[in-house]
Each structure stands twice: as C-alpha cells, then as structure tokens.
C-alpha cells in the first residue's frame, strides 16, 4: 500500500544479479536474521493462539513428538517411542531423560501439568478446545469437572499415559502442535511464591524452556534474540548459535530489509506483498509451495433464496475458479471446488467441475428462478483487505454475467465481520481456514452440527454420523472413503463454496539452507544452517539446490 512508487522504481531497474537484493550475509555463519511480522500475543504454549507466537514456541519448546521438516510426519522428540492400545484410545509415551533450560529434570509430570492447564477454564486458553481430544477435556473446559479428572497421567517420571475421548487417527501429528508443549511447573510455582503474576513467566527474566533455543533478549516491537539452548536434548545437531527475530509488520518494509540484507529470510509469518508477486517470482531466491489452507465462502443456509441447495450449487458452479487464480489472486493458488485439498494425507479429492455455467443456469431454473431478475439481490461480505475485495468483485461479476444475479458487496472491518458471522448476520461471507494438522478432518469438522466455527447453519445428522464413524475406523483406506462420502454429501447441499487452496511464496537468501517447503509452513530453526560458499563463489553456490537434506545427521536421521 505504502510503497507503490518504490515497487515501480525497483521493478524497472536492470537486474544486476538474478537475486533480489544482496546475496552476502551480513553476519557470521552461526547466525540467522529473520522477521516475525509482529509481536506474539502469548509466549505461553497453553495460551498461544497466533502464528507470531507459534513460530517462537516451536523453536523454544520441545513436545513429545516433532514434525518432520519436509513431510511433517510425527517423529520422536522428548518421547523416544510409544505404545498404542488396540482400540486406539490409550497412548503410552516413553520419555528420554532431558532437562529444562535451568537444569531441572523434565518429567512426565510437566506434560500432565501442561495438558491439565490447557483445558482448565482458569487458564482461559483460546485453544482449550485442542485439549478436548483427551478424555474428560471438554467437561473440564465447561467447568463441569476438576482439571485433575483429565485422563492424562504420569506412570513414573519418564512414562506418560494419555487416554483419548475417541480414536484419533491423526493424534500424533496433532500432538506436534505448540498447545501440547510441556510447562515448567516449578517456575510457575516459584513465581506464585514470590508474589509475581504467573502470566509473566515467559518474559526473558523468568522463562525456562526445553527447546532448541531460548530467548535472551526481548525489545518489545523491535526484536527478540534467541540463543542455542545447550541443554536441549539434541543440541549437538543444532547449527545456528543465534537467531535474531525482528518485528516488522509491514510486508513492504520487510521486503526492503530483505533486499538490504537485514533479513536472510522474511520468515514464515511474513507474506510477500501481492502487488509485487509477479515481479518477485522472477528471482532465483523466490520459492513457492502449497499451503494447507482453503479460501471459501460461507453461505447462510437460512437466508432466502440461499436456503435452497439448488441456488447454492448454481452459485458455486458459476464461479470460474481458474480465471480467479490466474487473473485475480495470481500467486499460483490451486483452484478447488472441494473443501479438502487433493492428496491431503492420501485423500483423493472429489471430482467436481471447477466451472460449469450451463449446469449452473439449469440448476437455477430447477430452483424455480427461470428469470434471473426474479432472484432477490444477494449480499456478499468480506473483511477489509485489498485481496478479499478483488476476489469479491470478480465473483460479483461472474455471478452477474453467468446467472444474471445482482450482488451487493459489503466491506466490513475484521471484528465487525466476525461479530456478524457469529450472529449469522450475512448471506454470503468469505473465510479462510488453515488446517491445524494434515488430515481431512481438520476441514470437514467445520461443518459438523456442534462446531462453533460452522457459520452456514447447515446441519446433517448423516454427515455427523459419517465423520464419527470414520474416526472410529482403524483402516486408513476405509476411513478416508468414509470421509470422502461425508464431504460428497455435504457438497451436494453446498453450505459453503470452496474457491482455492493457498500457496506460500517466500524469498530466501541463497546462503540459507535447510528450509523445506512444507504445507504447514513450519520451519524449525534447528534444521537451518548458513552455507559459507557464497562468500567464495557466489554464483555456483547460489544455484545449488536449496532443499538438500538438512546438514549433518539431524533428529530426522536419528529418529529413522
């Protein structure tokens, strides 16, 4: 927004190299300078609910399991191995002896403390629902049971047993999420004893962690500095000694700083400015990969004429998704008429036409609207953003052109928009949903009757039963088939209109190695290292494949 002039000027300059900005690191080989796009709300694993905090927690805490940097498959971390009961309900984790950053031993009790604290309403965690996966979690969150009733217990210092509410095929993967990191009970208790607010336990003067890095400096809204934690169990395989994380909110400013070499990588939380995407994609340090998030429109299935499924399906079929991603969003997004992305954990997407205006018109006639002017005006709301506005305008055009429907656009500020969505005070509204784990259920759950995030008012007992059934199924193939059946049933009724699957576009300096393009955009710093070759032979090293395996035998190799 601010820097149109800058874009034009930089865009027109003759390229001296094939890279955007400098390719010489401004620091030694054991350092990394990145951006975090803003201050985190919480640095407490139980309370954190934003990407800015997540980036830090994934690097300063270590959970029972960790995600493989490329495939995101669950790998051992603090747990070396685990046993799963035949019914898939009880998991017994065997922990390795390890330490907190203050030298105190880390035990199974720290995990019990954390999981109870996550669901305890007193904690007031926004992600308390993550803990509902454990038996008794939901009742505790509702205030109906004591946190001690959670079905999580330490059999001894190094053995943890958890019982699930129902079998969860993606449980281990879900467990890599930051909500499930251990919490140093002794530190919080010490603060209580000293009369200090326990909310402050993550400030650098108090914080104790168990991950690859620990925070040593926090200048609010400027930067955080992290240093390698020598007490991390796998510290010998951590390459970078120091990571400087800046808090630059404007993506254009972050881009300038990347060009000037102030950032080696703008980081997972910084998106590139959409208006420069075409230009930036020509550089060799530009990378793009699919991202586990879907852009879609909710339909209020109670608001006429949208209470008729035929009208809803007509609306979906009248959208030219290919044209939308090619001409409007322009960042390589994958057009999709289904909610679950194709290939997610072996899921085969349902074959639906991405665009079929003839069938759309036919459906509208069947719905009793042979003449488009009979249809009342439809209101499409979106939250304030240039990108959402462009998508909405394109779809307004498509619906008018293909179906003759008149569409009013309504731009709302984010919190107003959320309040309206919650109160079902809309006809059609935009939404994006990021998968919390790589399983179709993370998306399909949205449409269940009890899901508080279901803003369509659509409810189907058959759909709910199919999903519940699928999650009781131990055979992966049969489970996926049931999930597919459920999605198919849901899309027949079209309570939402999927548009596309997101992509992530990144700029990474050629000397930064070990960043894998995975679909959750999680890139642990412990796998990253600085390639010194560019200092000597810039071109040669710079064009070497960036995704070569993480240097030395890392946790990945050990786990395998």
């Amino acid at each position: 927004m601010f820097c149109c002039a800058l874009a034009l000027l930089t865009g027109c300059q003759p390229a001296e190299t094939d890279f955007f900005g400098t390719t010489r690191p401004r620091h030694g080989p054991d350092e990394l300078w990145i951006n975090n796009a803003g201050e985190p709300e919480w640095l407490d694993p139980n309370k954190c609910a934003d990407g800015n905090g997540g980036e830090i927690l994934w690097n300063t805490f270590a959970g029972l399991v960790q995600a493989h940097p490329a495939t995101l498959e669950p790998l051992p971390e603090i747990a070396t191995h685990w046993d799963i009961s035949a019914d898939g309900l009880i998991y017994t984790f065997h922990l390795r002896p390890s330490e907190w950053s203050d030298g105190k031993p880390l035990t199974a009790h720290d995990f019990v403390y954390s999981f109870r604290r996550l669901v305890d309403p007193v904690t007031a965690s926004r992600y308390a629902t993550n803990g509902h996966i454990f038996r008794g979690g939901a009742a505790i969150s509702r205030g109906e049971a004591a946190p001690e009733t959670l079905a999580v217990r330490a059999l001894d210092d190094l053995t943890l047993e958890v019982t699930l509410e129902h079998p969860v095929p993606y449980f281990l993967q879900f467990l890599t999420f930051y909500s499930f990191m251990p919490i140093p009970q002794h530190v919080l208790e010490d603060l209580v004893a000293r009369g200090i607010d326990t909310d402050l336990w993550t400030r650098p003067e108090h914080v104790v962690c168990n991950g690859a890095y620990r925070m040593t400096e926090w200048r609010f809204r400027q930067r955080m500095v992290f240093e390698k934690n020598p007490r991390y169990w796998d510290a010998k395989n951590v390459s970078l000694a120091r990571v400087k994380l800046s808090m630059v909110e404007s993506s254009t400013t972050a881009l300038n700083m990347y060009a000037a070499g102030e950032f080696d990588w703008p980081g997972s939380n910084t998106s590139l400015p959409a208006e420069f995407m075409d230009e930036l994609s020509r550089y060799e340090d530009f990378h793009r990969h699919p991202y586990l998030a879907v852009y879609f429109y909710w339909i209020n299935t109670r608001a006429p004429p949208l209470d008729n499924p035929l009208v809803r399906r007509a609306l979906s079929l009248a959208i030219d998704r290919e044209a939308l991603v090619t001409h409007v969003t322009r960042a390589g997004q994958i057009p999709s008429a289904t909610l679950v992305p194709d290939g997610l954990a072996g899921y085969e997407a349902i074959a639906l036409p991405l665009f079929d205006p003839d069938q759309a018109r036919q459906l509208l006639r069947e719905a009793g609207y042979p003449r488009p002017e009979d249809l009342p005006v439809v209101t499409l709301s979106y939250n304030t953003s240039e990108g959402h506005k462009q998508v909405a305008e394109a779809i307004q055009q498509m619906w008018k052109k293909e179906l003759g429907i008149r569409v009013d656009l309504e731009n709302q500020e984010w919190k107003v928009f959320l309040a309206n969505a919650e109160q079902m005070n809309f006809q059609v509204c935009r939404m994006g949903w990021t998968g919390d784990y790589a399983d179709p259920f993370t998306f399909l759950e949205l449409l269940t009757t009890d899901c508080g995030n279901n803003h369509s008012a659509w409810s189907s007992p058959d759909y709910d039963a199919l999903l519940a059934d699928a999650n009781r199924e131990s055979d992966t193939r049969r489970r996926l088939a049931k999930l597919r059946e459920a999605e198919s049933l849901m899309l027949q009724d079209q309570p939402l209109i999927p548009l596309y699957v997101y992509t992530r576009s990144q700029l990474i300096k050629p000397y930064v190695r070990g960043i894998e393009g995975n679909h959750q955009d999680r890139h642990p710093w412990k796998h990253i290292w600085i390639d010194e070759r560019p200092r000597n032979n810039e071109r040669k090293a710079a064009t070497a494949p960036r995704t070569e395996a993480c240097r030395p035998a890392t946790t990945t190799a050990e786990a395998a």
Partner: protein
Amino acid sequence: MRAYLIRRFMELIPTALIIVVGSFALVRLAPGSPFSSEKELPPEIRRQLDAKYGFDKPLPEQFARYLGNLLRGDLGPSTKYPQRSVNEIIADGFPISLTLAGVALVWSLLVGITAGIIGAVRQNTVWDHTAMAAALVGISIPSFVLGPLLVLLFALRLHLLPPAGWGDLQHVILPGITLGTIYAASIARLTRGGMLEVVRSDFIRTARAKGLSERLIIWRHMLRGGLLPVVSYLGPAIASMLTGSVVVEKIFNLPGIGPYFVDAAFNRDYFLVMGIVVLYAFFLLVLNLMVDVIYGLLDPRIEYS
C-alpha cells in the same frame, strides 16, 4: 498572566473529561470484542477472559473503575499484549515517537525558515521562486510516497542509511525527514508571508533609518515579526507530528506509539486505545495552551486577561 494560566488550566479539566467519556463510549459501542477471532471460543473460557479484564461488569461501573485508575495514573492492561500494561507500552514507545517528532521538528524548522527567509529577502527572484516551488512540492508529496523514495535512494541504492528499524541516530534520519518535510514546506511559506508583511511596516523603516545593518534588521526585526504565524502553526504542527506519525512509523518500522492509534482500535484493545487517546488529548490541550502563551511573548500587542 498567572490568573490567565490558572483559568486556562481549569478549562482543560472539563474538556479532558468530555474526551475520556466520549472515547470510552465510542470504543465500547463498536461491534466485536477483543477476544473474537475466526476460531470459536468456548463460553466458559470467554467468561473467564471477560472476568479477568472486568468486561463482565455493567458499563458505568467499568467506566467508574477506569476513571479511578486513570486518576491514579494506571492506564490498565492490554488485551492484545497480555504480558504488558498500557503504561509499559506507552513508556516504551512514546520516547521513540517523541524522538521522531523532535527530529522532524528540527528538520522542518531548519529547512522551512531558511527557505522562507530566502524567499522573503530575495522576493520575486529566481531564489524566491525556487524555494517556493520546492515548498509546493513538499506540501504535495504525502509521506507514504516520500518515505519509500528516500528508502530506495539512501538505503537500497546508496547504502548510506538503514531501510527501517530502530537502534541509533541513523535510524531516525530518514523517518524524521519524511515526517518533517510537509511541515518544512508549510513553515517556509508562512515565514516568507510573515516577513513580507512586516517588511514594509513602520518599525522596519525606523530600523533602516537608524542605520542598522541589513543583517541585523532581518534577524532581529523582520524574522521576529515574520515568525508569528509560524509560532501559531507550530502548536498544532507538533501535535500533529506526534499523533500523525502512524504512517511513517509503519513504513520505517519504528516501535513508537503511532501505529497503536489505528491497530489497537482494530484489535478492540480497549485500554490501549483509551490510553493513546488520553495521551494525545493531553498533548494537544497543553500544546495549544503553550502556543497561546508564547504568542503573547512574541507579539507585544497581545495582552492576557
């Protein structure tokens, strides 16, 4: 003079109260909550959060409590940055915004007054036209264009200054120039206009008749008269440099308080919005009062009563 000051101070109190009541009402009437997001919040958790910040109490009670805390100098907690209080956030950020405004002020006065004097002394010459044309350009270029252009030239091309960030003096040069230029341009035009107004007045003629040197006439007599409009402009200008630094602080990623003015409202960070509004209101009121006082010191025709 003393009675005047006391009276003016007394007038500030109801004004400040109206500002606090008005902004409290506006902030709380806006739809949405600090805790809403695209993910559902279980009702019990929501209740806990509301209770923690006192949002479960009736609004009048919340206001009374806020006002009580405000009088004790406690601006309350931030809901967006729960590990910081609003006092801490302002204490961290305000010195940075002040430094930025200070640099912008020095830049605007240096450039503006110099250009204004040149314009007035060399009226209708090439010097005058050049200075005034430059001023016109300065007034016309918004900071979100000037800032990126300066970054492009001095940071990305010449590598003389950092493109953004905060640390030492070199980080504040480009933002200071970006913020100050529009004021420099106005000051140049005001200085020139003010000086031209006095240049033909009787006391200048008297000064010339006394045989004073031209330099002394310009500095002691013309400039003093010419600066009057500048002084009355400076009050609102300084306030506007302080409160209008949102864009510049965003472009250069300075951790001042400017961006909160907008972001905290979007985040429904109730106490932070209120804190910034109260702070800005205080400065606006005090600066306006100061201008009135200084105006009288410069212009012997004004009397306080």
